[in-house]
Every structure is written in C-alpha cells, then in structure tokens.
C-alpha cells in the first residue's frame, strides 16, 4: 500500500502542473486579447494581434479542460466542492470563454467595421474577465475560504470578493497583460511590436507592485494550520522567485530583450502556481475559519485503481501531446509583419532584423 499512497500527492502535483501550464499558455493569449485594443492603431494591427495567437489559443485552452477532467477523476470531492462552492465565479469564466471562443471565428466572417468591433469587444471582455477571476479564485483558494463543518463553501460570490482576492485578481490581470504584451512583441514587428513593448513595461511595473502586494498579503494573513503542511518559508521562497521573474521581465523588455522577458514571465506564472499549491498542501480546499473543516488530499482523492489508470494513460500519451503541441508552436514561430502593399494582402517576414518593416500606418 505504502508506495501507492503517494499517487495522491503525485496527482495533486500534476494537477498543479496542469493549472500552471494552462495559465502560462492561455495567460499570454488572454494578455494579447486584453492589450490588443491599446496597441492596435488600425484593422491590420488588430488582425495581427489575433493571428499571433490564432493557431494556438484553442490548444492552450484544452489545458483547462484537462485540469478540470483530471481534478474530477483524481479528486472528485475537490471538483464537486470547488465548483459547487465557486459557482458564480466559474459561471462567469464559462460565459467569458464562450464569448471569446466564438469571437475569433465569427469576427473574420463578415467584412464590416461594426461587426468586427462587436466581436473585438467580445474578445476583449471574454479575456479580461477570466484574467481577473482566475487570479482572484486562486488567491481565495490559497488564502482559504470559510467552510462549514461538512466542508462546504457557503459565502457565495460576494464571499469570494475578499479584498485580498481583488488584489490577486488585479495582479493576475497585470501579469497576463505583461505576459501577452511580451509575447506580442516577440511575434510581431515594427511599430506594433514597439507599442507592445511599451505596454509591457507599463503592465510590468503594475504587475511587480500587485503581485508583491498579493503575495505579502496572503503570507501575512495566515490561516489555521493544517497538519502536515510544508514550512511556510517554502511557498514564500517560490513566490519570491515569481516576483523576481516579474521584475526581471519588466527590465528585460525595457531593454528590448523579448525572449528573456518571455522566459521570465513564464517562470513567474509557473512559480506562482507552485507557491499556491505548495501553500495549500496537504489541503486542496483550505478553510479560513477552522482547519478541520478544510478538504485534504487524502480526503478528496480517488481510489488507487483510478489513479493508477490515469497515471499509466498520462505517462503514455502526454509525451505525444507535448510533442505535437510543441511542433505547432514551431510551425508558427515566425514573426508577423505588416503588408508592404496593397492593404489586405500580408506577407510573412523573417525576424524583423532581416526584413525592413515599412513605416506605413503610424508609430
């Protein structure tokens, strides 16, 4: 029995990894959608922003479905309590993802400025809402929420709007906008890339302040200790790595080093999720009122057989998934450049060092 008992912890960590992967990937495509109206001067800019994430956003979103499915299978009680409790928060996210998901396809189908503007708003709002709500929800989760003795969260949507969660939500928004702006400056060229870099610096400063504030607040607030949790210093150190990532990314992008900046925001998002999961451990739904009301890994986990099947399936198929998803990023690795002429036809260029980007439009 003993060696298999660890499957619980393994799946807790894997689900943490799935969420981290999801927020890393969809984080930049949320960010691109949110920042697009601020850096786009015309229709071609807007299309370039959307097309920068066009081939990959859908695959990125599947990380969410996988995280959700894995939570359902490995920790049914966690899945049930979490989404039953955070009911309206998840509902808001679902509505946003619906609007966002169809906006990509619908927008391009009618050549009319008003029509495009409508779906631009859907794309923007559909990205803004989850960018905030995911951060707020994970802040609530790690901060702890009030739970009844039978482990149910009862305070509704209002109860989730705790000030610390609001700071967390704004922090995730700023972080994703930074992440997305850096991605955009990496994937585009010329004036658009320059504006994206500028947006990255602004959001980077905001993200540095907000992420630090959220981390300090959660660490200082504390909550009833759960038996078997890791020393508080560990998640804190991981969170400090995340803050360092955000600050470094801002410095890198200010110097025009897109690649390193993207790496740094990526590390920051992964580290933040690492800190969240390390601080929750061994709870999956920590209680803010009484430790015993919280839901733990052991209390929520599926039986050995389910976890074993999942482990085998994941071990066999994950490498293939990572390989073809990675390949798709490789296929679409080029930067997008503005068309030379005439408008409407666009050429793909090599990296902007090699291609002279026309000064058409504005800078």
């Amino acid at each position: 029995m003993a060696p298999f008992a660890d499957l619980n912890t393994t799946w807790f960590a894997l689900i943490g990894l799935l969420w981290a992967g999801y927020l890393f990937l969809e984080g930049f495509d949320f960010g691109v959608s949110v920042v697009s109206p601020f850096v786009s001067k015309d229709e071609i800019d807007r299309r370039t922003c959307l097309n920068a994430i066009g081939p990959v956003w859908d695959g990125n979103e599947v990380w969410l479905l996988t995280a959700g499915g894995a939570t359902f299978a490995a920790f049914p009680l966690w899945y049930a309590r979490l989404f039953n409790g955070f009911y309206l928060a998840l509902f808001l996210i679902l509505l946003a993802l619906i609007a966002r998901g169809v906006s990509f396809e619908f927008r391009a189908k009618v050549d009319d400025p008003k029509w495009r503007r409508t779906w631009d708003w859907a794309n923007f709002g559909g990205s803004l809402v989850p960018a905030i709500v995911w951060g707020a929800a994970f802040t609530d989760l790690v901060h702890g929420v009030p739970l009844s003795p039978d482990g149910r969260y009862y305070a509704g949507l209002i109860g989730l709007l705790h000030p610390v969660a609001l700071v967390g939500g704004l922090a995730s928004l700023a972080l994703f906008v930074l992440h997305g702006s850096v991605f955009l400056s990496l994937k585009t060229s010329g004036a658009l890339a320059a504006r994206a870099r500028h947006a990255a610096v602004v959001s980077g400063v905001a993200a540095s302040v907000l992420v630090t504030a959220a981390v300090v607040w959660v660490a200082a607030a504390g909550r009833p200790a759960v038996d078997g949790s890791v020393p508080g210093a560990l998640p804190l150190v991981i969170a400090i790595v995340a803050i360092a990532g955000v600050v470094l990314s801002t410095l890198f992008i200010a110097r025009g080093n897109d690649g390193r900046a993207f790496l740094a925001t990526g590390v920051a998002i992964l580290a933040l999720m690492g800190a969240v999961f390390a601080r929750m451990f061994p709870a999956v739904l920590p209680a803010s009122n009484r430790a015993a009301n919280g839901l733990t890994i052991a209390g929520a986990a599926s039986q050995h057989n389910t976890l074993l099947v999942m482990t085998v399936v994941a071990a066999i198929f994950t490498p293939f998934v990572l390989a073809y998803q990675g390949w798709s990023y490789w296929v679409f690795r080029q930067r997008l450049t503005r068309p030379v002429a005439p408008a409407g036809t666009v050429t793909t260029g090599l990296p902007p060092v090699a291609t002279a980007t026309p000064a058409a439009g504005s800078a």
Partner: protein
Amino acid sequence: MQLLLARWEFSVVTVFHFFFVPLTIGLAFLVALMQTLAYKRGDAGWDRLSRFFGRLFLIEMAVGIVTGIVLEFQFGLNWSAYSVFVGNIFGAPLAIEALLAFFMESTFIGLWIFGRGRLSPRLHLATIWMVSLGTTLSALFILAANSWMQHPVGYKVVHGQAVLTNFWLLLGNPMLWGSFAHTVLGALATAGAVVLGISAWRAHREPRGSEHRNSFLRASRFAAFFTGVATVLVAISGDVQARLMDVYQPMKMAAAEALYTTKSGASFSILTIGNLKQKPIFQIRIPHLLSLIADLSWNGQVQGINNIQAAEVAKHGAGSYIPVIPLTYWSFRVMVGAGILLILLSAWGAWLARGNNLERLGESRWFRRAALWGIALPFIANTTGWIFTEIGRQPWIVYGLMTTAKGVSTVTTADIALTFIAFILVYTIIGAVDAWLFVRAARLGLDGTGEEAEGAELAGLVY
C-alpha cells in the same frame, strides 16, 4: 426546484451542444475525405469543395468547442453530489478525453487553418485527418462515461462512492460499443445530409454547364450515397442497441412501446392517437415487430412496464421507476421516422444520379427542395434519440445505483435560475449568429475558395 432547474439546464446546454457535435464529427471526416480526393487526383473541384465545406465546418466547430467547455464543468456546478459519487469512474474517461482527443483536435485544427501553404500538401492533409481522429476519439471517451451511467460495470460501491475495480470492463461495456457505432455513424449521416442539401441547393444557383455546378452535383451524388449507406448502418447499429437495451434497461424498451403488460409476440405501434395507457382512439400496429426488435424472435417475450415496475420496487424499494411514457414513446418514433425519411431521401438522390447523368440530379426541383429541408432530419433524429436514451432511463442518473434527484448540487434555486437564464440568452444569440453566418458562408458558394483566396492566409492572417 433545484432539481427541476438543474435538469432543464443540463438538457438545454447538452441538446444545444449536440447540434454541433455530430455535425462537426461528420464534417471533419467528409472534409478530410474531399481533401484526400483533391490531393490524390489533383482535382480542383474537390479542392474547392473541401475548402467550402471546411469553412462551414469551422463556423460550427467554434460553437461546438465553447459549448463543450460548459459541459465539462456542468457536473461540478449543478451535479456535485453525483460528481462525488461517480468521480472515481466517470472522471477518468473525461480526463482521458481531454488528453487524447481535445488536444488533438484543437492543436491540429490550428495547424489545418493556419498551415495551408506553410505545411506541405501531404502534411496539411494529415492535419485534417488528425482533427477527424480527435473528434471521433472524443465521442468514444464521452460515450464510455455515458455508457457507464446507462449500465454500470467494473465498479464497487465503497463509503458512498462508486470506485473502479476494472478499467477494461469500462472500455468493454457492450453499451459503449453499441452507442459509439450508433453515434459516430449518426454523425456521418448528419454531415452527409448537410453536404447533400447544400450541394443540391448551390448547384441549382450556378449556371448550367459551369464548373462550379458540376462540382456541386458531384458533391450531391457523393453525399447521397454516403448518407444513404451511413444511415442504413445507423439503423443496423440501433437495432443491435435495442437488444442490449432489452437486456440491461428493459424499462426503456417497454416505455419505447408504452407496453404496460408483458407480452409474447408483441406488436409495435407506428402511430397512436389518444391515450397511451388505456385504449387509444386510433393506432397503426405491426404484428410481432416489438418482439423482433427486442429479442430477434417472432414470439419472444417483451416485459411490460407494470411487471418491471413491480420487480424494481422489490429490488430498490418503494417508488416509481417509470419514465415519462409519452416523451419516451414519441421521441423513439420521431427518431426512427426521421432516419427512415433520410434513407429514402438519399436513395432518391442516388437513383437520380444513376448512370453518370449528373444533370438529372441537377434538374429535379423537387429533389432539391427535399434535400434542403432534409438537412433538418438528422438533427431531429439526433436530438430525439438522446432524449429517448436519457429520459427512458429515468429516474436513474446511474442505472440502478443513484437516482437523478440524489445527484443535484446544494446551490440555491436563484443561482441555478440565473445560470439557466443566462445560458439560454447567450446560446440563443450564438445559435442565431451561427446559423446566419452558416447560411451566409454557404451562399458564397465556391467563389473565393481557390488559390486566389490564399494571399492573406499564406501570411498567417486568417482571422
């Protein structure tokens, strides 16, 4: 109240989602087939057709994907007691579906959309086949989860949770393979009917003797054969399912015929006017057919609702184990009727196209009209088929183990009402926009589907 709202919400978001699922599973396959014909034969007509139907496919796929995300979380939102009970078993196929199927379809659809001209034609063709494989795998795993609810296998109940004892039994569930075949063939028939209706309609709009008209007529002929064969196979797989149903869910079988008392050599009613329970006013009956369906024998015994109810009470305690009979009875007939009409429509199209005379197909005004309206048939059959499957097993959410009433979440009525109304509003808007865009894209015809459209796409500016 929570229960009623949660059930309505689930039925609305699922039925809406399932307009798009069979269409996209089937269209992915048909577009892949068309692109293969274009690639193998260097045929410009099939190339244009594959792009034309590919464009329609993408509009539907977008809605199919976003409405699918809602379903992944519907269990946790409104059915948390159910989720806790079944998570050990139901969660695994869901997670595996995401890992094996969703990643595949979403990644390769991006590659297919944006990879035209960037990948080699051979590789580009492979990406649409991967999309098709992904959508089909997705059906397999979600049906593995559903089939377990219909006929639980490979489990034991420990501390109020169903836990997995044998994963292979889950995948070997006879109900799974019956419904997988039925669903995927139904999806092919759905897309076939759509291709048939649209092609017949568009062919008529193109000038006689033109290349585009010829392409659409070829597509009509192809779709008529394809839909006909697929729908006949749907009927055969449905017949196999009926026998499984008679063994594992006798109540559903009896409800399908509103057969109250056990009978040997039971007849099957095609149409009933009046009360299903007492003596109806008017009925058309085919002798012995129900026994044939249920048991493959002329005088086989089919159990009646009252007898099964008594047996269920003895097994599970007091209560009603009878589904809503009129809904079960009629949904079954509408499904079968729509399927039969679709077979007749396809046969008509195939007959018109006989002897390589495509213009006979193009000139038949009545066929063109029938084919266009016939697009509705598979959607009616798909929807009523699932209503029959899911209503016919009530009151069980997991057959014999958990009733639907016990599965619902502890959220407030106001919360469910809010989400229900919001989903209806959003889905109405999206459904209307989707239908409008679909018709609009179909009206564009084959113009702009050739190489000339590739300028911007080649550069990666597709959206």
